[in-house]
């Protein structure tokens, strides 16, 4: 049987957090939010570039599964998850997560579904162009549809 050492190391961060001074939670959250708002234009630019790259990558796909291409597309779309929400486009985050799930499932099963990938990319483009101006019910319907598409490939537990 292997040896196990269990101990409780001191946590300096706990003491620092309690140091007098600092900020009230409300002010800190407001300051962080203001900082994030200043990134909006950069985030939109990054999303547009990502979509261009993803569409170009998907266009190179043939009819059969290509491990390298699937991996490349996964890296392109999974990396910016979290960025759209900074621009108030949380729906694109949900679409990117659904597409990342889909690509992960396809990779696991060594299959390719060009239509399923294309519908995700078109939805992202639409959501980006409308900048969330579309009605909430319409956006939710799009996201529910994407979820259905990606979950078709989810293996049962």
């Amino acid at each position, binding site marked *: 049987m292997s040896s196990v050492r269990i*101990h409780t*190391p001191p946590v300096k*961060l706990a003491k620092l957090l309690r140091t007098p001074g600092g900020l009230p939670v409300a002010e*800190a959250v407001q300051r962080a939010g203001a900082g994030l708002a200043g990134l909006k234009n950069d985030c939109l630019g990054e999303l547009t570039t990502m979509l261009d790259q993803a569409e170009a990558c998907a266009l190179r796909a043939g009819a059969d599964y290509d491990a390298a291409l699937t991996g490349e597309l996964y890296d392109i779309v999974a990396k910016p*998850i979290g960025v759209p929400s900074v621009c108030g486009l949380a729906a694109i985050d949900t679409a990117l997560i659904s597409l990342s799930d889909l690509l992960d499932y396809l990779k696991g099963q060594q299959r390719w579904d060009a239509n399923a990938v294309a519908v995700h990319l078109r939805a992202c483009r639409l959501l980006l162009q409308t900048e969330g101006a579309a009605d909430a019910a319409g956006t939710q319907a799009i996201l529910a549809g994407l979820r259905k598409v990606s979950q078709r490939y989810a293996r049962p537990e």
Partner: protein
Amino acid sequence: MGLSPESRARFNLERASVLVLDESPMGMSILVQILTGFGVKTLHRCEKVEEAKETIAKVEVDLIVCDSMGAGGEGYDFVSWLRTSKIEPNCYAPVLLTSGHTPSHAVQKARDCGAHFIMAKPLTPIAVLERIIWIAREGRRFVECDTYVGPDRRFKNDGVPAGMTGRRRDDLQGDIGEAQSPNMDQEVIDSLMKTRRVEL
């Protein structure tokens, strides 16, 4: 835990030294804006794992915020390296791991790398602050064995999994009856159990 964004409670991160590891410039910018908004003044920004390792070897850090970094999960490998590096006190530093998407083959790595908490993106300032305060709590045990080095993953005190025999001396044995009333909140239980100084 439920930290209110309107709370007037104060916290201080001005003197904390924080290492941020994220290969994506935009991901890095988001974390930097959140942390500087919280008052952090000493930030070590690393875009590559090697830079982060060099920083860990050179300076003392109080908190690490690290991205999982792509399908390969280099961020998980970094945390595993940190825990086994024996570079004290950094090897015990609280680690908040962020992840946009965890591919199925990396789930085990994510669970076992030794991070204090894994946060799914998108991140919001209040959620990040809540987690920083949570992982900074004192008294969380650290486990070091052949297969795992990191904070005790049994932090919920849910007891031994159903159908299994406990492996620890302090695991309770025997059957437990049906609950007679709703469970107490873990925070309430912790506050009841914690030894406090009495002032007369």
